């Protein structure tokens, strides 16, 4: 089997069989890409993972693009990216098409009525774990609460909040950096 086909099928298989989002894919990607095919080594794997996480967008897709590029340039990126996305795309389409025809079914409606509160509960768990790993201080905790309130009750587009905080934190970082630099020189 040639390299291109193997790249595509490897990521297709990973996309097809991992439930639970991008992070659940990591051990499978490592097993196939690092251990089985030895396309990249463990260090490269971790480096690429860091870059994938420091970029916007869907983590699993970002990671697939970077690994693909390392192995086979742009062609590899496209193949690995497609391999990750196509299983999700096809499965969801199959569900969406069939579901649109019996959504008004009384039993289906009851099932979803029971599931909706569970969806909320399943968001609270990553909320707590993210809050824990973020090491919130009083200041950043207040920022988190402000963001929550602005989006939920003031109906502000989250995009503007992300943009504003991103710009101001880079700006603030530069000011602090320059100040420290100046102090170092004067000493």
């Amino acid at each position, binding site marked *: 089997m040639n390299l291109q086909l193997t790249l595509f099928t490897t990521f297709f298989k990973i*996309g097809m069989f*991992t*439930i639970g*989002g*991008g*992070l659940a894919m990591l051990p499978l990607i490592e097993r196939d890409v690092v251990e089985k095919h030895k396309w990249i080594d463990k260090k490269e794997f971790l480096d690429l993972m860091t*870059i994938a996480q*420091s*970029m*916007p*967008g869907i*983590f699993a897709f970002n990671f697939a*693009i970077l690994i693909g*590029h*390392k192995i086979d340039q742009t062609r590899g*990126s496209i193949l690995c990216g497609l391999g*990750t*996305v196509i*299983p*999700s*795309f096809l499965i*969801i*389409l199959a569900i*969406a*098409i069939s579901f*649109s025809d019996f959504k008004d079914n009384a039993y289906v409606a*009851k099932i*979803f*009525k*029971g*599931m*909706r*509160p*569970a*969806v*909320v*509960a*399943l*968001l609270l*768990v990553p909320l*707590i774990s*993210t809050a824990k790993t*973020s090491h919130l201080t009083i200041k950043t905790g207040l*920022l*988190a609460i402000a*963001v*929550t309130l602005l*989006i939920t009750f003031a109906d502000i*587009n*989250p*995009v503007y*909040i*992300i943009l504003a*905080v*991103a710009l*101001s*934190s880079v700006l*603030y*970082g*530069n000011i602090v950096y320059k100040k420290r630099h100046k102090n170092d020189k004067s000493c």
Partner: protein
Amino acid sequence: MLILFVKLFITFFKIGLFNFGGGYAMIPLIQHEIVEKNHWMTNNEFTDIIAISQMTPGPIGINSATYAGYQATYNTIATATAGGEMSNMTHHLLSITGSFIATFSVCLPSFILLLLIAKMLVKYTANRNVKQLFAGLRPVIVGLIAASALLLMDSSNFGFATSERIISVLICAGVFLASWKYKIGPITLLIASGLLGLLIY
């Protein structure tokens, strides 16, 4: 139709470009654009999409974008052609086009960005600005996930009658405990609460 597709493209490109912090932080972005701003679907339908995205394989971001693109197109056509002059087949085909556009455009920004990085800088290391950006966005990501939970905690999802609300809160609390304390998987919990709904309502 073309206008809707262009709108879908711009919307999901924006969502892909500003999504930091994983699939859960993406939910309020999609919710704002799809439910609040463009009224492409109800909060109910959006919650169902999240439920299905969590139960099916693949990244939640891709799953929910694909489904949201489909549902947005499906609903828009249904409203526009209320008389029903469009065949079921065409309706589905156009909706599939919508879901393709949503999936493609949510992936496009990071694809361009990462290819540029991979091409230009052979040895990329997160620089000071990128690190600063992420440190600053960390509390925002917490806020985004909290907002997504609150946005879905409305009457359309938890019921208008008091009895329904009590049942919903109990299901929510039970699922939270089962997931947080006993580490039971989301698929098992969603199926269990679906069956509960079937029995109770």
